[in-house]
Every structure is written in structure tokens, then in C-alpha cells.
């Protein structure tokens, strides 16, 4: 789940603005068992984790070995071009867990994330649980739920040949799949389609989410970015 660490925002711009906009709609909580330490009965524990998440309106959920709530289909017929099933399928995620993996739930607001973390703490599942979010929000969540942070990992952003990177709007979209399954060229295409009104931002965000193979792509944030991008000049 390093794949959730480097999600781009103004805070990581190469020329940082003095007051970058806080990211208030992107919170991930994920769970991971360790081999030979706490992986007994791990399928039941992972399922319990995701079932708890479902009570708090996650915008995506995933199993790193199978995918998220929206997945590609191998059996489409031409009607899909006019009437595509865009409904997320969280039950497929829960039922599909069958062994070692990492499971994650994505929230688009702090309150839902905090309520979920509180439930996870009470459930005492025994597996490692992490929040991937702005550090201050994670710290506040710990304080409000009576948790003492064990470890922290900071994203320090990007260096090297950064001139090869795409523009900031594209980066905001593509870095929501840290494994790089959502390509920059595809993100550019989706932004153009949003500008041209060929599909709605909601449809485009769902199309992108199908490529994220562990379900950490934030569909709600992507929809907002694609909507805002309509009026921006890249």
C-alpha cells in the first residue's frame, strides 16, 4: 500500500504555493496481516474489516489481489456503449477475499473515516491498520478515538527528472492509483472528454476506477477533479 502514499496535491507542487488547498475528500484506511505473526483466520478478519467499512459510506473498497468495487468485465456486449452498468459492487470485494492480501476502504470525508476507525479499534481484529491521509487529520483521528500512533511514514514528493511528469490535474488523478495502472494519457483523455461533455464526470471517474487493481482510487475525488477541470486550461 505504498500505492496510497504519494497522492499529489498542491502541497507537493514543484513550486509550492504559500497556502495550498487542504485535501478534504481523500482518506484511506487499510489493513494488512503479516505472515506467521497474525495471519491465522485472516480471511475472516479482512472480511470483518470491510463489513465495518460498509457501514460508513466508503467511496471505494478493495482487495489488492482482486480489485475494487468497480472492475473490468470480460463479457460485455455492444449494448454497453449505450447502457453501461456503473454500479459499484462491494459484495464482490468482500466475497472475493481468499488469502493474503491488503484490504482498503476509501472515504471522501473525515467524519466517516473517523467513525470507521473507531469501529475497527473496538473490533480488535489484531491485524495492522493504517490511515493514509493528511498527517494532521490522521493524528486528530487518533486523538479523538483514543489511539496512540505507532509509526508514521511521510511522503516527501517527487524528485529527479520531474520535467517528464504531466500537469498537476493529471497527476492528481493518476497518483490515486500509486501502482500506475491509471495512465497519464488516459487521464488526459478523460479530462478532454469531460470538457467536451462526451460523458459526465461521474461516468468518467468510474471508468478510471476500473483500472485501479486494488480499489484505492477515490471515485468521489476524481469526479470533483474532472468536474473542475472542465473550466480549466491545462
Amino acid at each position, binding site marked *: 500500500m505504498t500505492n496510497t502514499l504519494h497522492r499529489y496535491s498542491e502541497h*507537493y507542487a514543484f513550486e509550492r504555493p504559500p497556502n495550498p488547498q487542504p485535501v478534504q475528500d481523500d482518506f484511506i484506511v487499510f489493513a494488512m496481516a503479516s505472515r506467521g505473526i497474525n495471519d491465522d483466520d485472516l480471511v475472516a478478519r479482512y472480511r470483518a474489516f470491510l463489513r465495518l467499512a460498509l457501514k460508513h459510506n466508503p467511496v471505494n473498497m478493495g482487495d489488492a489481489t482482486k480489485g475494487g468495487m468497480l472492475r473490468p468485465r470480460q463479457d460485455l456486449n455492444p449494448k*454497453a456503449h449505450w447502457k453501461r452498468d456503473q454500479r459499484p459492487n462491494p459484495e464482490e470485494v468482500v466475497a472475493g477475499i481468499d488469502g493474503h492480501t491488503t484490504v482498503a476502504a476509501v472515504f471522501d470525508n473525515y467524519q466517516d473515516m473517523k467513525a470507521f*476507525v473507531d469501529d475497527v479499534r473496538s473490533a480488535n481484529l489484531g491485524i495492522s*491498520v493504517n490511515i493514509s491521509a493528511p498527517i494532521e487529520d490522521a493524528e486528530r483521528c487518533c486523538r479523538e478515538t483514543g489511539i496512540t500512533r505507532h509509526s*508514521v511514514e511521510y*511522503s516527501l514528493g517527487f524528485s529527479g527528472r520531474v520535467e*517528464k511528469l504531466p500537469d498537476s490535474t493529471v497527476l492528481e488523478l493518476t497518483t490515486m492509483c500509486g501502482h500506475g*495502472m491509471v495512465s497519464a*494519457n488516459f487521464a488526459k483523455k478523460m479530462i478532454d472528454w469531460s470538457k467536451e461533455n462526451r460523458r459526465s464526470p461521474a461516468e468518467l471517474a468510474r471508468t478510471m476506477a476500473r483500472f485501479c487493481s486494488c480499489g484505492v482510487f477515490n471515485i468521489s475525488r476524481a469526479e470533483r477533479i474532472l468536474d473542475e477541470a472542465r473550466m480549466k486550461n491545462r
Partner: protein
Amino acid sequence: MKIDHDKCVACGNCLPICPMGAIYIDPSVNRARINSDECVECFTCYRGMSKEHLNPTLVRAIRKTAQFFRFRFDPEPDICPTDALVPEELSWPRVVRRAFSDPQVPHESTGIHGRGTAEVKTNDVTHRVKEGEAGFVVEFGRPGIGARFRDIDRVTRALAELGVEFESNNPVTSLMLDPSRGVIRPEILDEKVLSAIVEIKTRLEDVPSVLKKIKELSRELATVVSLGVSTRCGNAGEDRLSEILEREGYPTYRGKTNLGLGRVTVVHD
């Protein structure tokens, strides 16, 4: 990965899907082709695209008719209409491309999916990074640029000279001939991957010098580097690392917080 030219209808849907931009329409045959040197075997095209299994002859005829009248067909952008993408059997050393690029393939060395690393995600039960220590996660090629092992080898050799400790339970370390010198197997140096993570550990007081070295080295590479640094918090949840990072001018806005909810539950005989 390859494209079956008997099935491909040159619709172009797979072109922007490829994270490496390795797919193009070859005008000499009017079919999509993959530049195999740039392809990192991430399987994004094969697994990420939905499929229709339509008859290629019929689809080509419809496309030609629409093209003749200059009609713009507006198909779903993530569908391969004829299931034309075909995975190839990979052998050494090309197989490392998929191991480091396809997140659904677990790394043999660690048994972990994704990029094969655990870092501080499980630090509450593994205790890999202790108080007073810093764990570095140096990821080459991310976001979306890709990296060759030749670049990674340059950095690991230079870091080894600083006396850092490479994490033994890490896929890149498992490909080193000599971890004490950071030397990566020569036969894989030209292989390109979507990204690869090098993990090292130092004392907290060495963080500024290691950061400086990585920044210097990254300027000489043909790719980008994403950098993460972690530490074990104190008894009250405080951490000394953020202060160091801020003093060095690094952003510390986002990160991962291990909640310490893990515990040992497996009973060993």
C-alpha cells in the same frame, strides 16, 4: 504482451491505457503494435480493459463505413471490442518486468503483492523501524514514468557507500549480488519496470545527509524518484522525524499512520 493482428481492429482504445505509451497504430498494417522495449508487462491493457469478443471483420466493416461518412462513433473508452491483447510467456530476465509492474503478481522474495514491500505498514508487529531510526522508501519510476534497473543500480551503489542498511525482505535487495555494495545483477540492468522500491534504514540523525545524497543522485537519472521516510513514534505518539524533514525543507503534508492495532496471534509450537 502482444496484439493479435487477426483480431485487432485498430480502434486505438488501448493506446492511452498503456502507462508507458508503448502501444501505437502501425500504419503499414493498420493494426496496433507494442514497442516491446518500452512495455513493462504491467498487464494494464490486458486486465484493465473490458472485452466484447466481437467479430473483427464485422467491426472493421462498420468502422470503415463510419470513417467514409466522417461519422464520429463515441464508444466506451476502456473496451477492447475483439479481445485482441494476448499475454506472452515471459522468461528470465524479462520476467522481472512483470514482477515489478503488475501489482497483482506477488513478489517471490516477500510473498507480498503490489510492489512487494511492507515498510512501516506492519511495523506494529514486525518492529522493523525502531525508535531513533528512519526507514527510507525510495521508489524509482513512480509516478508513471518507469525506470530501468541500470538507474536503480547507480543509486544503490552510491547509497551503499554511505553505509546504509538495505532491507533484506525487499524485492530489489533480493536481486542484488552483493547487498553490502548495492550491486544489482548485471543481466537485469536494461530491464524496464513501472516502478521499484529500495528500502534502507538509518539513524534519525543521518536523515539529512541521506536525503541530500538521494536528491543529488536523482538529478543524474533518466527517471523520477518518489521518496518516503518513516519512523517509530514515541510512547505518547510523538515523532522526531517531522521536525527534521521540515528543517530540511521537505513537505510533510501527507503520509501513512500505523495505528498500532496489530498483535501477535499465531501460536508457534
